């Protein structure tokens, strides 16, 4: 045991990455195999390695604390982010295993998938510009290889996959150009050094941040550039959406969070242009996402639009911070909660709707009519999952606190715009939720919903998320009602606005 502890100390904080790398190494010996037994073995191996990596990630932080070096830094935020990525990876593994286990290239797909998890971890850990750039580029490459490999049997998908990945490639080229401009200001090698230095207000730093902002905007496929993302999700295999939603986007969000201090520096200096621009973009994205979801009958397109709505919630949080409605700590908390809501709702919903499409043979919202009445257990789980989307009611408290502090009639234009954007966006969002729920619990017609069969693993999968969601709802209710419960030295009512 002492030996393992010393070894762990030596390799800190790469323990989880080393476990995953070992799994890649072992799996590569079976890369050419098409045997079912080998595929099952690989699924078990990858699952165990992800679970051990998840445990070691938390253990390394709790036992050895923060770590910082020339290339990387590992603090509590990085631990949480890597934990989320590994948890998402376990979910993505479920989708890949469910829909590609009969694929003759399944072993190769799993190896590429594991490597993309490792790259995602490096993106989060990176501090040095070179490591940051190389890790995000290799991450995008590995995601491209994963998507193209899982879609190699889908007819006429290659154009859409290619179109989709041209955007992140342009984003990394813009990152490269941005880093070259940053080099003209200073030869500091990480963002924290620049943030604490006198160079922060330099003209080239501002230009670099503009270029980085454009690159991130392209990366996230925000409106009006959502076309390739919508087309690829619509046409792709069942696992494509899971890889993009639970992998590609979260890593981008964590990159934004880790570099967000630079953008927030200018917001905190009472720049008027930036908050107004942010609010306009937020309002535009929230509205376009909801209207798009309402106007289509394709379940994939509805979910894709709603996912972009959740992405715009991050912009909403930043807008609210820029206008003073919430403080920095609350903004970080809301961003984290948003990630959890996305993952814990979209994962089970993705699995349910994929199953419906697979059983009915068509991607249409009308195929879910009556599902809640035919399969009551699935219906209850769906209600619980959608309840998590009403978690946006947590915005009520900070808005109420803000309106208590500031006279409503003397509120600034920017604050008013944020509140209007928030209210309008959530009203439209509620319309979408009720539309979907209405279809699910309507009287069955056509018999399509009757064809839907749920496997045991699917029931277990969605039940797990429903239980987590229920626990989350109970916790929040306890906070709101100010009922103090101490659980593992953690006070449930510890959150304040």
């Amino acid at each position, binding site marked *: 045991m002492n030996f393992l502890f010393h070894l762990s100390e030596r390799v800190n904080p790469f323990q989880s990455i080393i476990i995953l790398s070992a799994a890649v190494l072992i799996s590569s010996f079976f890369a050419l195999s098409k045997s079912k037994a080998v595929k099952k073995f690989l699924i078990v191996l990858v699952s165990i390695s992800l679970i051990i990596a998840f445990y070691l990630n938390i253990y390394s932080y709790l036992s050895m604390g923060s770590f910082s070096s020339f290339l990387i830094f590992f603090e509590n935020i990085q631990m949480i982010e890597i934990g989320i990525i590994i948890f998402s990876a376990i979910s993505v593994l479920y989708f890949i295993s469910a829909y590609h286990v009969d694929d003759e290239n399944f072993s190769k797909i799993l190896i590429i998938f594991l490597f993309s998890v490792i790259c995602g971890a490096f993106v989060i850990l990176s501090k040095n510009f070179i490591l940051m750039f190389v890790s995000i580029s290799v991450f995008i490459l590995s995601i491209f290889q994963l998507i193209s490999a899982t879609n190699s049997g889908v007819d006429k998908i290659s154009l*859409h996959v290619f179109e989709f990945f041209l955007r992140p490639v342009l984003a990394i*080229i813009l990152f490269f150009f941005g880093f*070259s401009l940053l080099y003209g200001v200073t030869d500091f090698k990480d963002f924290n050094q620049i943030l604490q230095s006198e160079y922060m207000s330099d003209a080239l730093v501002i230009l670099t941040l503009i270029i980085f902002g454009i690159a991130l905007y392209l990366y996230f496929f925000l409106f009006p550039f959502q076309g390739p993302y919508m087309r690829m999700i619509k046409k792709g295999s069942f696992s494509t959406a899971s890889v993009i939603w639970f992998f590609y986007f979260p890593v981008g969000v964590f990159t934004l969070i880790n570099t967000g201090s630079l953008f927030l520096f200018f917001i905190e200096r009472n720049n008027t242009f930036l908050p107004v621009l942010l609010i306009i973009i937020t309002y535009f994205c929230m509205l376009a996402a909801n209207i798009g979801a309402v106007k289509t009958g394709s379940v994939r397109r509805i979910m894709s639009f709603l996912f972009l709505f959740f992405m715009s919630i991050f912009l909403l949080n930043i807008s609210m911070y820029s206008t003073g409605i919430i403080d920095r700590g609350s903004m970080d908390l809301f961003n984290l909660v948003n990630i959890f809501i996305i993952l814990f709702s979209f994962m089970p919903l993705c699995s349910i709707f994929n199953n419906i499409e697979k059983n009915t043979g068509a991607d249409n919202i009308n195929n879910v009519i009556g599902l809640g009445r035919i399969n009551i257990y699935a219906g209850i789980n769906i209600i619980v999952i959608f309840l998590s989307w009403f978690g946006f009611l947590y915005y009520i408290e900070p808005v109420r606190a803000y309106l208590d502090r500031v006279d409503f009639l003397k509120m600034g234009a920017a604050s008013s715009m944020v509140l209007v954007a928030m209210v309008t966006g959530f009203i439209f969002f509620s319309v979408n939720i009720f539309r979907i729920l209405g279809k699910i619990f309507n009287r069955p017609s056509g018999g399509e919903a009757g064809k839907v069969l749920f496997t045991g693993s699917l029931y277990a999968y969605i039940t797990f998320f429903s239980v987590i969601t229920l626990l989350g709802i109970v916790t929040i209710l306890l906070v709101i009602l100010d009922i103090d419960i101490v659980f593992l030295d953690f006070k449930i009512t510890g959150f304040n606005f």
Partner: protein
Amino acid sequence: MGYGNRGEEKMSFQLIIYANLLLLLIGIFGILYSKDIVSIFVSMQLIIISGVMNFLVFSQFLYQRSLWDKIFIILGVTIIYFVMFCLVYYLYLNKDELSRETLYNNFKFFKIKKSDWWGEDNI
């Protein structure tokens, strides 16, 4: 260029920086204007070269030829070209002739269609 007085150096440095930025704008123009995938790749190359030139010029004039930027260029350009190589390879192996020809002749990087915003997308 390393000779004469500071004024001449600064003028030359300014000229080179503006030339690099002009190259960047030519690249952006190419991405917006192009109707085929080859032009888009060419435009991306121009932006990459503009970035590389920025590194080299800043290293030459501001840091007296440091090593860090060379390493960034080597690793960064290697990985960017590798990613683009994989993309083109995927395109090259594409057995769907219609997609290949669409990309070759009638492909705009930023194309806005009504179906991307609402309604159905019959692809």
